[in-house]
């Protein structure tokens, strides 16, 4: 396989243009995935800008989610550099498994919960500096350059999706900067999505064979996820709040 920037010549990496080096990595990422992993949904070309025509979303099948499986949580923490340090009250949790028991029927279920990437996010409404924002393609993010750490978004989120960083952080992942005193949450692996990939949680879920999570462009009627949403009943959590989340659940 030919790496575009290297042209099959022996070139000292130090003499290459930095940009070309990273670009070549990106081009590889969009094609090469681990063998045996189904390409759940193709995001688009690498280095695509946030496209207002797209709306990224996820569909989670609660029936396929196993109670004792934590693959999505582990994958997210490895990918983005947060970890559970033994202090569940103050540790950041971008995604968590929620175990449910129906109050009347006793039905048991399990599902992963993360930022729901709402269309009208309350966290974006309440942020005093505008650090909490929604990208044109529907991904809700925290701009940590402007975040003052007031935690109002954490009060406003109906899903408790946001975490506050309570202590110094070291050795952050280069694609997921995070630091003390700011608020963070699931980024829908925006660094992967922008390069044409899929979130780490979705990838790991299909790697375990459960296949409970699906990712794709909700606005593209031909995408797998749009087809699935059209044919099967699904809900958004707290639909009564009319937030129109990008993450939907079926069989709940």
């Amino acid at each position, binding site marked *: 396989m030919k790496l575009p920037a290297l042209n099959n010549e022996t070139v000292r990496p130090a003499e290459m243009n930095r940009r070309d080096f990273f670009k070549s990595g990106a081009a590889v990422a969009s094609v090469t995935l681990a063998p045996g992993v189904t390409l759940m949904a193709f995001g688009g070309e690498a*280095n695509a800008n946030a496209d207002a025509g797209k709306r990224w979303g996820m569909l989670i099948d609660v029936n396929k989610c196993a109670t004792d499986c934590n693959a999505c949580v582990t994958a997210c923490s490895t990918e983005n550099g947060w970890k559970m340090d033994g202090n569940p009250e103050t540790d950041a949790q971008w995604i968590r498994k929620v175990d449910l028991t129906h109050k009347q029927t006793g039905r048991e279920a399990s599902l992963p919960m993360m930022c729901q990437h709402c269309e009208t996010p309350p966290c974006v409404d309440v942020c005093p500096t505008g650090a909490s924002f929604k990208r*044109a393609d529907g991904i809700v993010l925290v701009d940590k350059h402007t975040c003052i750490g007031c935690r109002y978004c954490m009060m406003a989120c109906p899903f408790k999706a946001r975490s506050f960083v309570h202590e110094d952080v070291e050795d952050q992942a280069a694609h997921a900067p995070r630091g003390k005193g700011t608020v963070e949450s699931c980024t829908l692996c925006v660094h992967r999505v922008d390069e044409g990939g899929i979130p780490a949680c979705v990838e790991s879920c299909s790697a375990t064979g459960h296949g409970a999570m699906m990712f794709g462009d909700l606005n593209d009627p031909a995408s797998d996820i749009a087809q699935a949403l059209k044919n099967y009943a699904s809900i958004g959590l707290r639909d009564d709040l009319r937030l129109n989340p990008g993450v939907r659940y079926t069989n709940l």
Partner: protein
Amino acid sequence: MKRFIASFLIVFLATVGGASAGSLYPEIPKAVGAAHPEGNAFMRINHMKLLRHDRDETMRLGNRDTQYSLKDCVACHAVMGPDALPISVKEEGHFCRSCHEFAAVKVDCFQCHNSKPDEGFTALLGKSPAATVEEISAYLNGVTQ
């Protein structure tokens, strides 16, 4: 007597001052790779503006094909420590720190951003002889898995 002490002090301080005048200026570690085409003076004055503009491009618009990303700066300006691994901003020889400490300008970036480049990358850079195409492509394949 007073005049003797005064002149002694002046000579002493001048000597000491002169000897340390060279060490007042920061020792800026050399970067890996080619120099910026814009020149060092331009970068010294404008690097923050460039970074800030590009970060909004990447953060808000999703454009990852920018010219001046912090990740690239950190990778190219990595300084190796005694164990042949890049040092973080907590240690004195770090590139950004060496200049910023001299200028007494606080660097806010590394509260959130990693001041060391990705380990695999700099291991390639530090290799001698140079990494081959196969090693680089193997690294890139590893990154995407």
